């Protein structure tokens, strides 16, 4: 069965224009990657609300902070590797820290593309596998990883209406649709895509699709898997994870991020405190990535154990430890 692949960046750019039409406070900033991030079209539609600061990400982030302080809702975008990786100080001190009364942090939306190792050809230097760890350690920040373009669009809308600093990581490659158009998204709430009783696979971003495929494989072996799209990395859905731990007895996490400090760590923190069960974390095992052409990206991911086959294998291991 051939899947329809859709592009997260195009969806993001399109959604920004829709939001921009409704909300005059929304401004968009880029750092010489506006064509790639598909924000350029917003600039054409609203030239006075669009700023390209050149290859100067620290400045990008801090100018966005200033715009937010003055009442705007800035969306600042470039590649993942250049925002959390390069600008942690500015994100922390200029965006997350400044708080007045009940407003925690400034109202900046950092939206990046090219998260994880599925970046491919650009190689390890451009594959951000530390951003979840960095961003979720900063107080006041919300961290989101959409699994498909429907999630991208809905989360972009939510961010535009929800006060506070947000970080959203998109993938470079086109992705299959996971969600229905009618799917509702709420920050802090995970989505159960498939119910099951033997094991829970919690995934985020492009690995959600792999989790579903793994569940299909396991089903053939008579193993019933619950699959969760954990797009809301922070705040994380503690209740949903506790429930999954109780009801399925083991959890496998999956992400294209270093297993240290990432989504799997976040899940483990919750489960170990609320209802300890065996957990296995699939992700980059504290290594750097490398180049791969587009058609080789599945192999690159496989090399790091990020594949439906490996998820299925690990799920069985987790289950055996129950």
């Amino acid at each position, binding site marked *: 069965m051939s899947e329809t692949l859709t592009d997260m960046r195009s969806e993001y750019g399109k959604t920004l224009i829709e939001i921009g039409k409704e909300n005059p406070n929304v*401004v968009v900033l880029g750092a010489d990657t506006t064509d790639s991030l598909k924000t350029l079209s917003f600039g054409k539609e609203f030239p006075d609300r669009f700023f390209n600061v*050149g290859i*100067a990400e620290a400045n990008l982030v801090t100018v966005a*902070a200033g*715009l937010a302080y*003055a009442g705007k809702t800035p969306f600042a975008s470039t590649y993942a590797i250049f925002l959390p990786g390069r600008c942690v100080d*500015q994100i922390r001190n200029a965006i997350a820290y400044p708080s007045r009364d009940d407003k925690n942090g400034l109202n900046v939306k950092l939206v990046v593309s090219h998260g994880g190792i599925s970046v491919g050809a650009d190689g390890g230097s451009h594959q951000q596998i530390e951003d979840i760890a960095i961003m979720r350690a900063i107080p006041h920040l919300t961290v989101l990883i959409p699994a498909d373009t429907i999630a991208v669009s809905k989360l972009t809308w939510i961010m535009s209406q929800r006060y506070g600093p947000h970080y959203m990581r998109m993938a470079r490659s086109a992705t299959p649709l996971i969600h229905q158009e009618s799917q509702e998204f709420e920050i802090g709430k995970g989505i159960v895509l498939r119910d099951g009783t033997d094991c829970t696979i919690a995934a985020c971003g492009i690995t959600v699709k792999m989790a579903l495929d793994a569940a299909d494989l396991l089903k053939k072996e008579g193993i019933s898997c619950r699959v969760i799209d954990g797009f809301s990395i922070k705040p994380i859905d503690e209740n949903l994870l506790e429930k999954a731990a109780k009801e399925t007895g083991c959890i496998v996490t999956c992400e294209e991020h270093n297993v240290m400090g990432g989504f799997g760590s976040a899940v483990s923190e919750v489960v170990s405190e609320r209802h300890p069960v065996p957990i296995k974390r699939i992700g980059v095992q504290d290594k750097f990535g490398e180049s791969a052409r587009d058609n080789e990206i599945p192999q690159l991911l496989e090399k790091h154990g990020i594949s439906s086959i490996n998820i299925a294998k690990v799920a069985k291991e987790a289950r055996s430890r129950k």
Partner: protein
Amino acid sequence: MGMNYYQIKKNARRARKLVIRGTTAAGSGHPGGSFSMAEIMGCLLYKYMRYDPKNPLWEDRDRLVLSKGHASPGLFSNLAVAGFFDEAEIDTLRKLGSRLQGHPDYKCPGVEFCGGSLGIGLSFSIGNALAAKIDSKNHRIFTIIGDGESDEGQVWEAAMTGAKYKVDNMTVILDRNFIQQDSYTEKIMPLDEELTGDDLSEMWKDASRWKLGDKWRSFGWNVIEIDGHRIEQIDAALKKATQTRNTPSIIVARTVKGKGVEHMEDNPKWHGVAPKKEIAPIIDLELDCQFMIAPSIIAGDMANLENEVKRCVEGRADYIHLDVMDGQFVQNTTFDHNKIKELRPLTVIPFDAHLMINEPVKHVNDYINAGCDIVTVHAEVCDESSFGEIKDTLRQNQVGIGLAINPDTNLPEWSFQFLSDLDQLIVMSVVPGKSGQKYIESTHQKTQDLVKVLTEHKFDGFIEADGGVDLTNVGQCFTDGARAFVGGSAIIGQKDVRGVISDFRKEILKARRKLLIKKAYDLGGRDLVNKWIELHLIGDKKTQLIQMAKELGYS
């Protein structure tokens, strides 16, 4: 707030004292960089910026961004003086639960930028300025950046962005104090030229070595270079920057780290250290001892006053004393407001108009319109009603308020109610009317007695000694309590005006040092005198002070 030159000066002094109070109580903090920007902060908060301390988030307020966030004691102190919160709150600086954090924070009303991480305030300001442009708002963003933080690459990213987007609704002031945490900026990371050796003073004086302004010019900015402690220069620069369109403006203000306290000035050790508790009262007194020198140009060539003004400017006078005589209140006639109006465009140095005329209340507007910065009228020709009117008119027009008394006049009783409003009191030490007379010795005692009366009535202006003041008596005049000194023939009558003004300063400084040594002795005997002297690390101050303390019998 629209305050005059003298009020700004007084508020800067008040804020400096609060910096000492706060950092001493905290036991840490950054007084040096707070003092280098004191006058800049003063001009912004007390003259240029529109804000409402009772409504700190008023939408149309001007925004003050302190990018060099470690100078937060300077920011907090000025916000307190400006009325955002009670001055006593400075005692909570850096303490648990305080609104006055180690670096600027939104916990404190009036703070617009949470600074601390250096080099990012300019980008933040640009964001604010761009938002104001989108919204067609008229408020301005004023941003103070440091020279040390200019090592950060982001400053230059922001510089390019400011030029690209023609951010002209923002004024940047660079506090160029030449010192960063480790040492002199030109040793750590030269912005002008590498400094070899340890004598910063040569670097400061030699304009041909300054290249920082050129850097900004090459980034497409409108650059205005000034002495950042001279209020009139800051004032003029802010005016010019505010009027510049389509180009971002930066005022490169050359300043002295620790300005106002001799042992802190130009001393890298005072970047991030608080004064010791026992030293604080001596520093406090030193801050009360700021002084100014004002040559009186009628002692020069009356046919070419333009040239006399020029000599004062080149001689680095603090302001220019203009003796207006009408031939009635005094025998002589000099010039009137028309002449002052002609001289005004020649310089931004404050004009200190001393009106020796009858019925000053009828003429005060002429002198305001001529561009005087302070107007002093004689008590002998005023009464409660006319002086009240003069005071109000001057205040409304942001002109300093001065009262003068002749040698045989005492402060009239009607004047007591006005003493707290006065910016200046001229105590004449010659019979007014002509230049070149000898100082009347009894004025020393008279001034000392006056200080008590003035203190009782909450006078916080400057006593100006006027008449026969020269190098032999200026030190004693300072000790008496005078803080501004008019020099007639003793300054303007000399060939080398700059040299003689510098000699005046040295004499006053000597008197001030004696006063401070005495204060140290009174507070803590020889031990404290020695401790205080030990702090004077830069140049040959220490040697001079040791000698002086010996002569005074305090060491």
